[in-house]
């Protein structure tokens, strides 16, 4: 069964690349068929009670290190599989419409399939090395898809940036894996859990060592889930085609970091200090990104910062799990929000894609307006997604999952809880702004006048995503993930707070932006947010510039000190060099070469005789 889920997308990618590239239609169908097989497979797996996978293929086996390509069959993996494959499937369909006229359609679908394969691999991974392998492959497919329109300089730069920033995270991840292996003697999750619950590591390790190890693993998450300070690549990644932003940079790949944290939580749990760091970085990212999101004008960038912010929530929930009575509630809350977020954020991105497609690649919300009348299906499903993201009480899935995280925060740390509420307030505000400016009010510009609803192949996925965005809260996803142990305790402080921030943000957004044709808020601090707090500039001026200066200095040193003085300056060498040049001036390089061989042979003989 697991093979049947993992391999079809890979097969599709290979077949398209090797054979069907000249036939874009056929290629897209192959890709969709493969995704369908995986999706059906994961659906069956979700309801089967298969404890662990049948997939078990030995990749390497060396003394003390056995690496397999295997599969996890626990609820965590099964839930995630369903999210990845089904959201993926809808996005495949949507892409049929969105990429219909692109000359690179076949390449697009091949890369999409490659992504599906890699992402499923991460979810199934039953050991850290396998996870790292697919982790990197996901990085590759993300790189290829961000740079899909590689002729555009912005896309080319963005793809490079994404890969390199992710590599920084992977550097820590890999060291974390090495640390885990050296400490506990295995990389296999099941064995690790056994070793750790028995409390015997293969090697002793200090609390500081444990913290470094946990933070190393967390660095992997910081890269992939774009947590501060490695968040800079995600907004730029919006240069990729919009379905890619929906699938990879909103619903699935960026959630892989959170998934990984839940997967290795029992290791992170050994270091409360590391969990503290994770909780604060997560919540910090959530707030920081929400502030920036209030000041962006590009529809995709607003959604990108909102993704950062929501991922921050999830990461923080994992971090806070260490400080509460039932740690599994923390990870469950994170996965719960991951699931609902995948639905409504994919919906929002596809909605944005539908708009962008219809407006011929206009992405500035101030040049839209009144779209709800032109594109009713896109518009109203977008509103549903927005409500879910804002956490509209009771009727949306986002409410329940956000509530779960805030409940964890309330128990873990009041300050983090307050920050969580502030973030929720901002979320409500910027999403109201987005919807009101883009979809209501007067149409601004010719493109909007001529806008029309997208074809069915694009709107049906929107509707299909809108349904779980509303009702997923009633499906007991959290109980499935936790194995049926989550208690719902109704806390009026939480409920009341959630209601207030939802309504407050909505009202404020409404009051400020209703019927406005340009940004009404202009004061000093907002300039900072508008420029993303200048992190791109800061990194460009320090890290990138520093690295280039260092590289330049080293290159100079290599050329003039190592290459010239040290090597050619040495007396004996210089003498030989002189002779050599004389030979070359006679154009007799071959003479020289043969003399050289003769000399060597002679030397051998002499040494032989002497002995």
């Amino acid at each position, binding site marked *: 069964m697991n093979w049947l889920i993992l391999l079809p997308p890979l097969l599709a990618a290979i077949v398209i690349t090797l054979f069907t590239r000249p036939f874009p239609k056929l290629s897209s169908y192959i890709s969709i068929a493969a995704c369908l097989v995986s999706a059906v497979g994961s659906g069956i797996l979700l309801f089967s009670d298969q404890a662990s996978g049948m997939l078990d293929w030995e990749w390497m086996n*060396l003394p003390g290190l056995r690496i397999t390509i295997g599969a996890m069959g626990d609820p965590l993996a099964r839930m995630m599989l369903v999210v990845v494959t089904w959201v993926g499937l809808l996005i495949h369909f949507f892409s049929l419409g969105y990429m219909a006229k692109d000359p690179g359609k076949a390449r697009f679908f091949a890369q999409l399939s490659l992504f599906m394969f890699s992402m499923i691999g991460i979810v199934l991974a039953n050991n850290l090395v396998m996870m790292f392998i697919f982790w990197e492959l996901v990085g590759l497919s993300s790189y290829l898809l961000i740079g899909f329109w590689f*002729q555009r300089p912005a896309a080319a730069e963005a793809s490079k940036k994404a890969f390199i920033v992710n590599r920084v995270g992977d550097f820590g991840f*890999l*060291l974390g894996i090495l640390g885990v292996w050296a400490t506990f003697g295995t990389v296999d999750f099941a064995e690790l859990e056994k070793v750790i619950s028995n409390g015997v590591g293969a090697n002793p390790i200090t609390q500081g060592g444990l913290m470094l190890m946990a933070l190393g693993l967390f660095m992997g998450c910081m890269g992939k889930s774009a947590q501060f300070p490695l968040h800079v690549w995600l907004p730029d990644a919006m240069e990729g085609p919009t379905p890619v932003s929906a699938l990879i940079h909103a619903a699935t790949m960026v959630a892989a970091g959170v998934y990984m944290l839940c997967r290795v939580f029992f290791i992170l749990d050994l270091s409360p200090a590391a969990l503290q760091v994770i909780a604060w970085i997560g919540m910090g990212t959530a707030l920081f990104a929400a502030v920036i999101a209030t000041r962006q004008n590009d529809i995709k960038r607003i959604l990108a910062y909102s993704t950062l912010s929501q991922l921050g929530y999830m990461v923080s929930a994992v971090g806070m799990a260490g400080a509460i009575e039932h740690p599994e509630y923390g990870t469950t809350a994170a996965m719960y929000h991951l699931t609902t977020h995948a639905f409504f954020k994919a919906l929002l991105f596809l909605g944005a894609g539908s708009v962008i497609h219809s407006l011929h690649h206009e992405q500035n919300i101030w040049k839209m307006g009144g779209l709800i009348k032109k594109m009713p299906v896109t518009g109203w499903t977008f509103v549903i997604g927005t409500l879910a993201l804002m956490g509209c009480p009771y009727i949306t899935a986002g409410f329940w999952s956000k509530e779960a995280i805030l409940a964890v925060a309330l128990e873990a740390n009041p300050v983090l809880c307050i920050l969580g509420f502030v973030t929720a307030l901002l979320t409500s505000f910027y999403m109201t702004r987005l919807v009101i400016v883009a979809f209501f009010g007067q149409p601004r510009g010719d493109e909007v006048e001529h806008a029309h609803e997208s074809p069915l192949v694009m709107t049906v996925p929107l509707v299909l995503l809108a349904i779980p965005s509303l009702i997923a809260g009633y499906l007991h996803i959290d109980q499935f993930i936790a194995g049926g142990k989550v208690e719902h305790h109704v806390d009026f402080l939480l409920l009341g707070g959630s209601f207030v921030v939802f309504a407050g943000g909505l009202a404020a957004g409404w009051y400020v932006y209703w019927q406005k044709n340009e940004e009404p808020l202009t004061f000093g601090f907002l300039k900072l947010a508008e420029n993303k707090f200048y992190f791109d500039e800061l990194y460009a001026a320090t890290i990138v510039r520093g690295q280039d200066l260092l590289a330049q200095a080293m290159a100079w040193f290599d050329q003039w000190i190592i290459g010239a003085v040290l090597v050619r300056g040495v007396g004996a060498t210089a003498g030989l060099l002189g002779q050599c040049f004389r030979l070359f001036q006679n154009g007799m390089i071959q003479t*020289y070469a043969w003399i050289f061989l003769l000399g060597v042979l002679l030397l051998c003989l002499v040494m032989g005789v002497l002995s």
Partner: protein
Amino acid sequence: MSELLLICLASPLAAVTAIAFGAPARKSALIAALVSLIGTLVLAINFDPTASGYQFVTETEPLALDSFFNIQFAVGLDGINLPLVLLTSVVGLAAILAVPSRISSEENQAGEGGYFINLLLILFGAMGAFASLDLFYLYIFHEVALIPTFLLMGYWGNGDKRFSATQLALYLMTGSLILLGGIFAFYFSMPEGMQTMDLREMEAVMDGKAQSAVLPLLVVGFGILVSLFPFHSWAPSAYANSPAPVAMLHAGVLKKFGIYGLLRLAVPFLPEGMESWTNVFCVLLLMNVLYVGLVTIHQKKLDFLLGYSSVMHMGYLFLGLFSMKAIGLSGVILLMVGHGLSTALLFGLAGEIRDRAGTLEFSKLGGLATKAPLLSFLFIIGAMASIGLPGLANFSGEILIYFGAWEAGLYWVTAMSVLGIVISAVYMLRAVRSVFYGELSPESGRVNDLVQWKERIPYLILVVGLILVGIYPKLILKWSETLFGA
């Protein structure tokens, strides 16, 4: 079966003779390379991974020098040199097939024979060096391969070819001499009566002090051949200025001789020497990874970038060696193969671009993926292999080296080496960005894709190798399972 190894070794030499007597050069070379490849493949299939010692051994009567050195020509294969012999024949075939336009052009018909003779001699020397079981022959075969390298570079190279060839010759000659000293020191430091040049008869009997004295000579001697910091200056300019097939053969195959030598001599017979010098050489190998890595970032031309990048990755191989653990040493073997294939692929494709565009400067190239999608696709595979992407051969080697070094307790060295995965991504993706992405530049507009199958095959062979070893590293690992005292 043991004659087959001799046939593989002799076929390039036979082709050289045939060409010298007027046989069509290109065809003869191709046949010889094919015979070698098929032969080594048959040997690989028939190799028994469970047996200990060397297989397919052929030996001659000892030479007259017997009384001093008991020199004896003998060849044979085990889990260490079988992958390298296979690598040699694979890259050899690709190099012979990837003929630069300058060689195949009409005006150069006369020179074609000379070109192929030299190429075949490199192949012959490399095969011999890896297959020999006698230190003397091991050394001599390597020299045999070096000389045609200088000649090819001097005659058919690009840019400042004379200077590069001189520098290369000087450098490698110095290295070889130090190495020769090292080999003699190695020989004479063995206790009386145990002295032998025969790899099969050597035993780890040297005392610790002697080991520590001999080791640096060997590491520096071999190290110069592998471009260990600070003896790396020859490599980038030599590779940039030599014809692509020569760079493929030298960077891909011949350079591994240094690592191979250390794996053969230092690791099994000088373990205490290795240990006592670990700190010093760890600093040097870190310089390879970090310092050379940074220098690579600054390169403005694709060929120099690839040259420096190839130097940088040698640091990993040294790290694996100094781990002295089964995991790390297995990683060294895998990475030698992976690096050989990926380097050959990248140098070969860079040569194709130079042939067509007339330049490899980043500022003049751009947008090639639009004009030459297949070439770009293959290059990106090579680039990804080189920066250690899973699924391609290099990754399997690199990750084992990290594990091995970590196991050996070299935490800081490993951690800093792992930084290399960021550095290599920075320079390689910059290169890919400048050459293949973006808008099409006029120079890039001149680049036609690899349209004919004969242009594609050499690179496809290498790509297939990279993928096979990447997905199923056991192909190679199973041969060395019984080695390294696991």
